[in-house]
C-alpha cells in the first residue's frame, strides 16, 4: 500500500517485536490474575472462598495490578509503533487463515488498548463511556487473554525464532548503542522502553508504596498528603447521606434470630477494639489506619447469627454500586473486622463513614461499607 521506504526505521524487526511482546505477555498475565482475584473479592463464589489473611493481601495484589497496568502503557505504545507498517500490508488478506490471523491481531491490539486506556481514565475519574467500568474491564480482560492465546498459537514459530535470534551484527556490535546515522538501535530502544516503564512506576507507585511517596509526581493519590492519611473516594455529599448520617437518631439494625437495633451509645458501650488495617482501593492506592470500634462478630453473636453465615452490610446510601457489600464468614468472624467508630483515635469523619463503617482485612475498599445502617443475614 505504501512504498517500501515509507517506514525507514531499521529498528522495527521480529527481534524487537518478540521481546516487547514477551514483556507485555508477562504484564498481561500479572494484570489478569490480580484482576481476577479482585473480581472474586467483589463477586464471591461459594466453591472458592477467599481468606481474610494476610491483611495486606489485597493491598499487594491490587497495587501490583494497577502498577503493572500503568507500566504496560509504554510497552504497548512502542509495540504498536514497531508493528505499524503491518497495518498497511497489501493485499489485506491472502487467504481465509491469513484474514483471521489479522483479525485476531486487531482484536488483541484493540482489547489491550481498551484495558489500558479505560484503566488510566478510571484512575482519573474520567468516565468517557456509557458502560459500567468494572463490567466492561472484566469482560474485555478475557478477550485480551483469549487473543493472546490465539496470537501465540498462530505466531509461535516466528516468536520462538525471533527470541532465539541474536540482534543483527551491525546493531549488536555497535558499542555506542546507535546505528549508522545516529538513529537509536533496537537494543537501546528496548532499554529506553524499560526506562519509560520504570519512570512511570517510580512516579506513581507512591500511592501505595509509602517509601516512594516522595517521587509520586504523577500519582493519582497521595495518602501522605491527606489529613488522617486515608484518601476519600466517595464523599457523604456525593452519596447523599450527609443529613441522615448526622441526624442524631442513628440506629444500626442487625438481623438474626434475635434482631436488635443499636444506637451509637449502645455500640460505644460494647467492648472496644483498636486494629491497624490497610484500606486498599480497587484503583491501586492504599493506606494504613488505626481503626477503633466494635468487632462485627461480637454484634452478630449478640443477635444469635450462625457463625457460618454470610452477612451483608447496607449503607445509608440509597443507591450506588457499593451501597451494600457481602461479608463472607471468614471476614465477618475475623477478630480484626470491625464496625468502626473511630479512625486514628478520633471519631470517624462524615466522609470516612460516620457514624459507623465496616473495616476488614484483605478486602477491596469499595466493600468496606461506609455509613452502615443495617446488617442483614444471607
Amino acid at each position, binding site marked *: 500500500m505504501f512504498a517500501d521506504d515509507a517506514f525507514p526505521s531499521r529498528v522495527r524487526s521480529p527481534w524487537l517485536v518478540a521481546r516487547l511482546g514477551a514483556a507485555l505477555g508477562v504484564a498481561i498475565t500479572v494484570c489478569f490474575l490480580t484482576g481476577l482475584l479482585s473480581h472474586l473479592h467483589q463477586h464471591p463464589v461459594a466453591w472458592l472462598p477467599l481468606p481474610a489473611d494476610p491483611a495486606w493481601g489485597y493491598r499487594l495484589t491490587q497495587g501490583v495490578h494497577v502498577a503493572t497496568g500503568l507500566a504496560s502503557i509504554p510497552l504497548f505504545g512502542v509495540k504498536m509503533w514497531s508493528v505499524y507498517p503491518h497495518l498497511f500490508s497489501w493485499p489485506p488478506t491472502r487467504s481465509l487463515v491469513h484474514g483471521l490471523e489479522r483479525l485476531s491481531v486487531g482484536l488483541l491490539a484493540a482489547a489491550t488498548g481498551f484495558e489500558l486506556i479505560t484503566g*488510566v481514565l478510571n484512575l482519573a475519574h474520567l468516565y468517557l463511556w*456509557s*458502560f459500567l467500568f468494572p463490567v466492561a474491564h472484566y*469482560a474485555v480482560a478475557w478477550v485480551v487473554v483469549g487473543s493472546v*492465546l490465539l496470537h501465540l498459537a498462530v505466531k509461535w514459530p516466528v516468536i520462538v525464532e525471533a527470541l532465539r535470534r541474536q540482534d543483527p551484527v551491525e546493531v549488536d556490535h555497535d558499542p555506542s548503542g546507535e546505528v549508522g546515522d545516529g538513529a537509536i538501535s533496537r537494543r537501546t530502544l528496548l532499554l529506553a522502553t524499560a526506562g519509560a516503564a520504570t519512570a512511570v512506576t517510580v512516579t506513581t507507585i507512591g500511592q501505595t508504596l509509602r517509601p516512594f511517596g516522595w517521587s509520586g509526581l504523577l500519582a493519582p493519590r497521595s495518602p501522605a498528603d491527606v489529613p488522617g492519611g486515608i*484518601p*476519600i473516594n466517595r464523599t457523604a455529599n456525593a452519596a447523599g447521606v450527609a443529613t441522615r448520617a448526622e441526624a442524631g437518631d442513628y440506629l444500626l439494625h442487625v438481623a438474626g434470630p434475635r434482631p436488635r437495633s443499636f444506637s451509637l451509645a449502645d455500640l460505644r458501650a460494647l467492648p472496644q477494639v483498636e486494629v491497624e488495617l490497610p484500606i486498599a482501593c480497587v484503583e491501586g492506592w492504599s493506606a494504613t489506619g488505626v481503626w477503633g470500634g466494635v468487632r462485627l462478630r461480637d454484634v452478630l453473636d449478640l443477635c444469635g447469627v450462625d457463625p457460618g453465615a454470610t452477612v451483608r452490610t447496607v449503607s445509608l446510601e440509597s443507591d450506588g454500586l457499593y451501597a451494600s457489600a457481602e461479608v463472607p464468614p471468614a471476614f465477618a468472624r475475623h477478630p480484626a473486622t470491625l464496625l468502626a467508630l473511630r479512625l486514628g483515635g478520633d471519631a470517624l469523619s462524615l466522609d470516612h463513614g460516620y457514624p459507623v463503617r465496616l473495616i476488614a482485612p484483605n478486602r477491596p475498599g469499595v466493600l468496606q461499607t461506609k455509613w452502615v445502617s443495617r446488617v442483614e443475614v444471607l
Partner: protein
Amino acid sequence: MTGRRVVGALGVLVIAYGGLQVLLNWEAASPFGLAAFLIGVVILDDLILVPLALGTGWLVRRTLPAHARMPAQIALVVLAGLALVGLPFARSPARNGESATLLTEPYWRNLGALTASLSVLVVIAVLARTRRPQRSGA
C-alpha cells in the same frame, strides 16, 4: 502443531467467554458503547498516537545532528510514557470535584519538571558525546 491448535481453540473459547460476559450483563456492559470505545481506541492509536510518534521521529532525523539523535529519542520515549499516564490526571475535571483527596498533585507542573529534567539529561549526554574522542577507524 496439535498443541498450537489446542492453544488456539482455547483462545477462541476464552474470547467467547469475554463476549458472553457482555451479553449476560447487557445493560451494564452497554455493548454498542463498548464497541464504539474499542473502535475509538484503534483510531486513537493508529491515526493519532503512532503517526504523532512517526512525525516526531521524522523531525528528530531532520533537525538534530547525528550525535544528538539517540539521547533525544530515548528521552522522547520516556516522556511519551509519562505523558500518556499524566495527561489524563492533569485534564480530569475530578480534580475540582467533591473529594479533595483525589488527584492532588500539580500534574502540569510536575510533567513540566520531568520534561525539563529529561531535557537537561539530553543536553548533558549530547555534550559528553560531542567531547568524546572519535574512535579510531571511524
